[in-house]
């Protein structure tokens, strides 16, 4: 790094604090929240469990503990929520590619984004990444004077990896030093690169994420599209811990960092493919050896040598001290030596073999399904050679050579060996930035609006989108749990973990909805304690917690998003269960591309929120029953009123869905109203 960079990077790393009083106030509130929260939950676990009704008592205290950890993680995020100073000016002469990822969005939408991307002021190249490979889109790109990229034939019969695959493909066909990634519905502002490239003068910076804000949100935000708390204090807090993460669009990435990820991922997969290929080869050689044992001892001896060489290679691979190239080179060498035992001076056999060899590549290409699994491929090719008895054992050895060669340097199971963007999840963005942080790269959250997005305009689309986010996040949680990732600081791991933890809220919500229903209907109390004592422990915590929320949000309205996060509990539960299923059984999730246009339909689709409607009905019935108990049956008034209040709160929370379901789409304000 040159001296000028060092100076600049120090400048970029330096943060201006927000007004002293507010950060201090937030930290005091965080401390109080944690203290009072621990006081409350400790008391709950130790002194209040109603063991007679453990089936509701335990779930409730577990749900409360879950929420408390969620609050603690939020507090930790807010502890470092600071506002960055403006970056240095963008250096001249850097090369940038702007990628617009599209699959099936309407032409007009992509055109609008592409035109805006083309007109970004900093010199760059613009590319439409058309995963739909539509001829019309190629024409539009030519018309606009921007580049057009679709997947090549190498992707046929191989995993496509959705948007991550689309971008990985484009990375291999472009060469800009930086990449700005845009969804088709995110219209960039002209200064987007001028305002952000300055950060990258610090050569440790790999990523700069900017907000995703929607320009088509109706007054009152009926679908809860606004994520101002996330694209604001939360990302700023993560940024404070150097854990601001990539959110898929409106982000600038350093190509070198992405390629480094891709190479590390390539090395890992070559290692594991070679491992399974060696297993397959051993099985194949064993089968040959049994076949030749009685027929030709010389051949059996050679095959024994090959078996030993394979075992040695596996051993070296497991120990991990020798480089793979050396292990495989020695292995091929030893297989050749063993082959010499057979060949000796049988020239007729050699000519025969050369003739037969030319048949092999065709055979291999004829069995594409097995290229995904090197060991299955080897076993199958072994069986094929074995069954055609007229083939010489040399050909059998040659098939081992060939099969090893397929996996020892290359990566036949993927369209391209280097996959820079992580493909372990349908939300490739989070997984990718976690790996970048793991390699020691730094990220930036730049909290200035630099692109105008379009949010879903109907409840069905909104629900699909939320489900996908949840699924993707939980896939990362199960596949590469941040807590066990080496290379990141503990704080960085917790920041990623915080996001994943919040997606478990669906299970807690079920308990929170059920508890008041169970009390009001049956008089069963999950807490063995008087109402007053409960209030004395719980209310102080709740008050500080809400104050923390209020100050941390800096005036951003959060009530609506709090309600959405509880009311969408079936979506979160499905996200968790389907992600776990996909990881356990290695089945792909059906990647749902969020429709970017309004889904026309006749009236509200109430069937989408059946569980929530059932809960609401149950709450109303329970409240009625509770009132009867209170006035006729002599139920505890304090406890009954507390639970009635809780039930009303739950109904208000669920009420947020009424607005979402009956929303009929965004009507842009007329020009007069704007003025």
């Amino acid at each position, binding site marked *: 790094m040159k001296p000028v960079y060092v100076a600049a990077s120090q400048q970029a790393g330096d943060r201006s604090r927000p007004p002293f009083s507010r950060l201090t106030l937030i930290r005091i509130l965080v401390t109080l929240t944690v203290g009072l929260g621990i006081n409350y939950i400790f008391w709950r676990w130790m002194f209040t469990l109603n063991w007679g009704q453990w089936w509701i008592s335990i779930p409730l205290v577990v749900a409360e503990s879950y929420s408390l950890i969620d609050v603690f993680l939020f507090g930790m995020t807010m502890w470092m929520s600071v506002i960055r100073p403006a970056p240095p000016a963008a*250096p*001249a*002469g*850097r*090369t940038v*590619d702007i990628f617009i990822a599209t699959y099936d969005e309407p032409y007009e939408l992509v055109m609008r984004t592409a035109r805006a991307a083309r007109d970004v002021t900093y*010199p760059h*190249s613009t590319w439409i990444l058309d995963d739909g490979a539509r001829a019309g889109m190629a024409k539009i790109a030519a018309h606009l004077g921007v580049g057009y990229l679709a997947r*090549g*034939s*190498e992707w046929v019969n191989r995993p496509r990896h959705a948007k991550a695959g689309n971008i990985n493909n484009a990375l*291999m066909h*472009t*060469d*800009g*030093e930086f990449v700005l990634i845009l969804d088709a519905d995110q219209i960039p502002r002209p200064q987007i690169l001028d305002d952000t490239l300055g950060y990258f003068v610090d050569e440790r910076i790999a990523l700069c994420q900017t907000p995703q804000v929607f320009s088509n949100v109706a007054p009152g935000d009926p679908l809860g599209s606004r994520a101002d708390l996330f694209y604001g204090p939360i990302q700023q807090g993560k940024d404070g811990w150097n854990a601001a993460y990539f959110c898929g669009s409106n982000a600038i990435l350093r190509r*070198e960092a992405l*390629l480094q990820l*891709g*190479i*590390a991922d*390539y*090395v*890992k997969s*070559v*290692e594991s493919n070679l491992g399974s290929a060696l297993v397959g080869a051993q099985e194949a050689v064993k089968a040959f050896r049994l076949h030749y044992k009685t027929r030709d001892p010389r051949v059996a001896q050679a095959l024994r040598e090959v078996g030993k060489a394979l075992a040695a290679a596996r051993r070296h691979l497991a120990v*991990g001290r*020798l*480089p*793979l*190239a*050396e292990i495989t*080179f*020695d292995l091929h*060498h030893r297989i*050749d*030596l063993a*082959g*010499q035992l057979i*060949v000796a001076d049988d020239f007729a056999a*050699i000519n025969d*073999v*050369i003739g037969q*060899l*030319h048949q*092999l*590549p065709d055979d291999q*290409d004829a069995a594409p399904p097995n290229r995904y699994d090197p060991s299955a491929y080897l076993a199958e090719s072994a069986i094929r050679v074995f069954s055609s008895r007229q083939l010489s054992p*040399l050909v059998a050895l*040659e098939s081992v*050579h*060939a099969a090893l*060669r397929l996996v*020892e*340097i*290359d990566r036949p199971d993927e369209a*391209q*060996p*280097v996959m820079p963007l992580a493909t372990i999840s349908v939300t490739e963005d989070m997984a990718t930035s976690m790996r970048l942080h793991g*390699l020691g790269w730094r990220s930036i959250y730049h909290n200035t609006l630099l692109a105008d997005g379009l949010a879903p305009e109907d409840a069905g689309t909104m629900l699909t989108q939320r489900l996908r986010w949840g699924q993707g996040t939980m896939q990362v949680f199960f596949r590469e749990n941040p807590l066990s990732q080496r290379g990141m600081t503990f704080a960085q791991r917790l920041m990623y973990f915080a996001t994943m933890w919040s997606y478990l809220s669906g299970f807690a919500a079920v308990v929170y909805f059920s508890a008041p229903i169970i009390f009001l209907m049956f008089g069963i109390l999950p807490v063995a304690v008087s109402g007053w004592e409960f209030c004395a422990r719980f209310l102080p915590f709740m008050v500080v917690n809400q104050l923390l929320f209020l100050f941390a949000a800096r005036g951003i309205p959060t009530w609506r998003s709090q309600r959405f996060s509880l009311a969408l509990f079936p979506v979160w539960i499905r996200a968790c269960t389907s992600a776990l299923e996909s990881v356990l059984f290695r089945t792909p999730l059906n990647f749902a591309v969020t429709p970017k246009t309004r889904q026309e339909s006749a009236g509200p689709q109430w069937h989408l929120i059946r569980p929530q409607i059932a809960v609401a009905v149950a709450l109303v019935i329970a409240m009625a029953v509770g009132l009867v108990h209170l006035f006729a049956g002599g139920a505890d008034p304090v406890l009954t009123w507390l639970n009635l209040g809780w039930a009303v709160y739950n109904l208000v929370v669920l009420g947020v869905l009424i607005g979402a379901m009956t929303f009929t789409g965004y009507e842009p304000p007329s020009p007069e109203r704007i003025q």
Partner: protein
Amino acid sequence: MNLRAQNEFNDTGLANDMKLVTEGITDGVVLIRVGGRLDLVTAPELSRLISATLERHQVCIVLDLKGVSFIDSSGLRSLIAGLKAARMAGGDLRLAAPTAAVALVLKNSTLDRILRSYATAESAFPAKVGKLPSNGRGLRAPHHSDAGSAQQTERGSLTWP
């Protein structure tokens, strides 16, 4: 894409300072001395030289990296591409004498799990391994060059990935 401009920015005005020198050291082994920057701009040149060498049936190649001041992931990819092409041709590609900077990049990218670096160009192909059994070589060469060209057309070109 303005490559020239980028390179000038990276490297104080020297547009392309990679040096490539080919020489034979022992029979069958070709030494390529690489000097300067091995990056986005210069890596394709190295890939071209490697494939030209392989086409002359000189399949055992040592890359002497003593003079390499900088390597990026494009450079690393040209090394893997070269290794793959050499193996497909029935030979091998080995690295020798990397500078500390290059060794660090190899380590950070974990590519040192695949490629070994030898201390000197002369030690890269010890005589006992360098001279491969002529029978095995003679048998395998035609088959693998076939497989190699099939792979190349499938992937587009030798400039893998």
